[in-house]
């Protein structure tokens, strides 16, 4: 059997490059395509909806694609730059490409990491707020948040201050996803998230396996800022958190994801976010390699047998 994996990734994506190298080392053909060139790659694609949408996906003379590693998510896939093939003015065409690719990846029976949901959606990140129904159902502790829509200078009373008990090192900070909203000041639109003084614990879920690591130090920062430290994480085990991470990703129907918890060592670790396109810039090399190895096993199960 000849395998061909399509990797949709940006040029500087190290995890994608590592997966490509590992696949090629096992004689799997690999096509790495940047989102901006997908429309060119798919220009001769033809899909009759009774058939598998990946079945006919091939460049002239190439082996058909048997699996896909999708390393762009959310708006990045929607904003396919219309280079070459597509009229730059044609936003409609971009939306059509986006819908076609989402359909293809959601409906194919071939392995896809990560597959868009049954309704074609794959956010790059599930924030703590969006995880509320899952945390509630699973009984997990969740990072608290306050979202607000408020005029910058309202002529009437402000939205009340968040009335949460604040630990000495606690409080709230503005989320990076809503940057530009003026930090913690009121009179703005955005989201504030609970601030921790804790270890960042990352549970990388690959299929049914979980590989964990945590920050060496505690940080009094908001969760996105944890990524900015240059300190490498260390491998770590916590079966209870691993089980929680698996349950969360199972509900979200993700095969490859990083689940972030804040662990202060005293109270129950708090679920902070889930990323569907995990980064490994600070990762323990052993953990990162394990995630690469098991990801390509999911993409091309036959190469291991």
């Amino acid at each position, binding site marked *: 059997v000849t395998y061909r994996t399509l990797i949709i990734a940006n040029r500087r994506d190290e995890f994608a490059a590592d997966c490509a190298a590992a696949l090629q080392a096992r004689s799997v053909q690999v096509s790495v395509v940047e989102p901006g060139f997908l429309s060119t790659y798919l220009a001769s694609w033809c899909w009759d909806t009774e058939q598998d949408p990946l079945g006919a996906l091939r460049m002239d003379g190439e082996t058909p694609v048997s699996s896909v590693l999708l390393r762009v998510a959310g708006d990045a896939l929607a904003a396919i730059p219309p280079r070459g093939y597509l009229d730059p003015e044609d936003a409609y*065409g971009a939306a059509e490409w986006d*819908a076609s690719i989402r359909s293809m990846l959601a409906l194919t029976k071939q392995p896809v990491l990560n597959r868009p949901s049954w309704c074609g959606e794959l956010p790059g990140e599930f924030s703590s*707020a969006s995880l509320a129904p899952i945390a509630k159902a699973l009984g997990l502790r969740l990072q608290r948040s306050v979202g607000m829509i408020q005029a910058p200078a309202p002529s009437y009373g402000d939205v009340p201050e968040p009335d949460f008990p604040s630990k000495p090192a606690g409080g709230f900070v503005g989320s990076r996803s809503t*940057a530009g909203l003026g930090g913690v000041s009121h009179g703005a639109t955005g989201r504030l998230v609970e601030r921790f003084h804790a270890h960042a614990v990352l549970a990388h879920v690959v299929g049914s396996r979980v590989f964990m690591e945590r920050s060496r130090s505690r940080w009094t920062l908001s969760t996105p800022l944890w990524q900015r430290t240059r300190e490498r994480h260390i491998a770590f085990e916590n079966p209870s958190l691993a089980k929680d991470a698996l349950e969360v990703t199972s509900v979200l129907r993700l095969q490859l994801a990083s689940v972030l918890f804040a662990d202060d060592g005293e109270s129950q670790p708090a679920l902070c976010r889930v990323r569907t396109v995990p980064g490994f810039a600070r990762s323990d090399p052993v953990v990162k390699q394990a995630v690469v190895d098991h990801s390509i096993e999911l993409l091309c199960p036959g190469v291991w047998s």
Partner: protein
Amino acid sequence: LTILILGSACDDVVSRLTSRLEIDAVPFVHVNTADLPDVWSVVVEVSSQGDVSGQFINRSESICFEDIGAIFVRDLLDSFAQPSSLAATSASWEVLVTLLNSIDCLVINRPRSQGSNGAKPLQYPFIRRISGLQVPSTRVSADGRMVASFVQTYGEVIAKSVSGLRRKVHLVDLQHASRPLTGPIQVQPRIDGIDVRVHVIGTSVLAHRVTSVSVDYRFPAADEPSPVFERIEPPRWLSDACVRLTVDLELVLAGIDFRVTSTGEWFCFEVNPSPFYTYFEDSKDMEVTQAVAKALSDPWSTEAGRRGKRAIQ
């Protein structure tokens, strides 16, 4: 408990619904999304247990989420006032989506349930599997040669958008297919017959037959008559299939498009999670509007409302 209507005041669906609720003397609050954030502020708090609380506030009143019994939301993102920045739009969207996806009450319809119509080929296998309804043979391609071969196979072929963007359905012939395409198109054999729009509200089913000579009745040509809508009673099996589809898509309100052939075959085209139902209903009877108002007034009468109640309990 009050009803919250979230949508633009300029929207015909919203204005007709608020009028209906006023006539019925049902308490409701309309938050015009164009008034966010200048007139209305919103705060949404998510606790460490995953509970969602908060309120809508304006100069004279505040509405706590716990006092809301049902929410009707209409074209959320489209109806925002011109945003001062993309970040503000994105942040507003996130706040409202958190609320609408998590609040324990009837929501018509939750944002998380509306995605399937954004990529239409995704709905076909779902429609077939859940309802057993027929869907047309469909080809998606950006290759004009493959579109041309589809035309050669089926003769009369129509093209429609793959995405959720509203665009006129048009006929495709060999000459058209041979021109370079600017992106993928979705082609289907043209099915001769009568269009039927079925609206499902909870377990209520209201259907309208559409008489039109146009390829796409929504966009009649200048020399073509406007479409004519007529209430019909759909067959029981079809009503059951439509309710099943709506419930399985986790929707409370859906507009489902069909074409019925002269031999009585029903082909399902799509399930619309945010239907423009006032286009179809008689402006005097307003049957669909009344059914929506009833569902909002008595949320436990709908399956989604009962699910919400179970979630609260």
